[in-house]
């Protein structure tokens, strides 16, 4: 049997930190639901649904990152760029809830922390990096590269969020600097995969429907591609 994606399981974090991350994540997601109303309409709601489905599927594909280790997409940066940071948080949260409830991937008491690290931190960092960087590039290719950089940086950011949680409420006595270095190192490698996938998917959507990509709104890239078959859909 193949080992698959592992989010934080139950037992890694103590009860106080588990509760704290639940409260923080719940508050942020509640805000995200309110904010998402503005960003979701008949055109963007299906794209958000599709993004969740794609992220769920892509997270099943662990890719090797050298010496006996693998990584998988988080998808926070991708979701933020495609549907915006607030809706993006909800996209990744839906995936994490389905994984925890149905597939026992990620613990139930750890769900708050998993949501905080992957649905909130990765999404926000990915979004900020993309919006900051996209001003300095021209064209779809440039935007796709910035998307890749956003995806790349979102992964070590997410890993560091775990390290902070572990520093506060980890259940095993470990050297935090060693764990931080190891987590940072391996997630920089995994971030390369995240960046490649994020860049490729954003490039693909930009090539066919740049007008629906939330992250390029207000830039010259957002104009619809003038092509009969694309206009017809």
């Amino acid at each position, binding site marked *: 049997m193949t080992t698959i994606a592992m989010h934080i*399981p139950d037992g890694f974090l103590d009860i106080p930190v588990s509760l704290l991350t639940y409260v923080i994540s719940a508050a942020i997601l509640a805000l995200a639901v309110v904010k998402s109303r503005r960003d979701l309409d008949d055109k963007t709601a299906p794209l958000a649904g599709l993004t969740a489905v794609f992220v769920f599927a892509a997270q099943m594909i662990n890719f090797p990152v050298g010496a006996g280790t693998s990584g998988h997409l988080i998808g926070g940066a991708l979701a933020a760029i495609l549907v915006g940071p607030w809706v993006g948080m909800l996209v990744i949260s839906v995936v994490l809830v*389905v994984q925890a409830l149905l597939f026992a991937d990620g613990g139930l008491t750890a769900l708050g922390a998993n949501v905080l690290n992957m649905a909130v931190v990765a999404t926000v960092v990915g979004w900020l990096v993309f919006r900051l960087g996209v001003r300095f590039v021209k064209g779809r290719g440039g935007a796709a590269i910035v998307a890749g950089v956003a995806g790349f940086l979102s992964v070590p950011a997410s890993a560091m969020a775990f390290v902070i949680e572990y520093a506060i409420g980890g259940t095993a006595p470990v050297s935090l600097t060693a764990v931080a270095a190891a987590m940072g190192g391996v997630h920089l490698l995994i971030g390369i995969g995240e960046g490649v996938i994020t860049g490729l998917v954003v490039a693909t959507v930009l090539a066919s429907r740049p007008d629906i990509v939330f992250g390029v709104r207000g830039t010259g890239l957002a104009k619809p591609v003038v092509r009969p078959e694309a206009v017809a859909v």
Partner: protein
Amino acid sequence: MKRILIIGGLVAVVLAALVSFYASSHPDGLERVAGDYGILDTAQDSATSTSPLADYSVSGVANDRLSGGAAGLLGVVVTAGAAFGLFYAVRRRS
């Protein structure tokens, strides 16, 4: 939009149902570090570990390819139901 939904949906189904079988079976970054530093021993089974779909396999289906593929396909369907349901419910009505 319809075209993106169809193509994107097909890509997701192929990834979850077929390509997932060829995914790396090595521990992921977190599991690897947790194993190296003695954190992994503190992991406890999730309350959902007895789910018939736990660990992305359908319990009772012996064939790994079939079991994992069906679990992936079911995951895509459930994720789609939850996500499309949520986002259509929250959206602005025009």
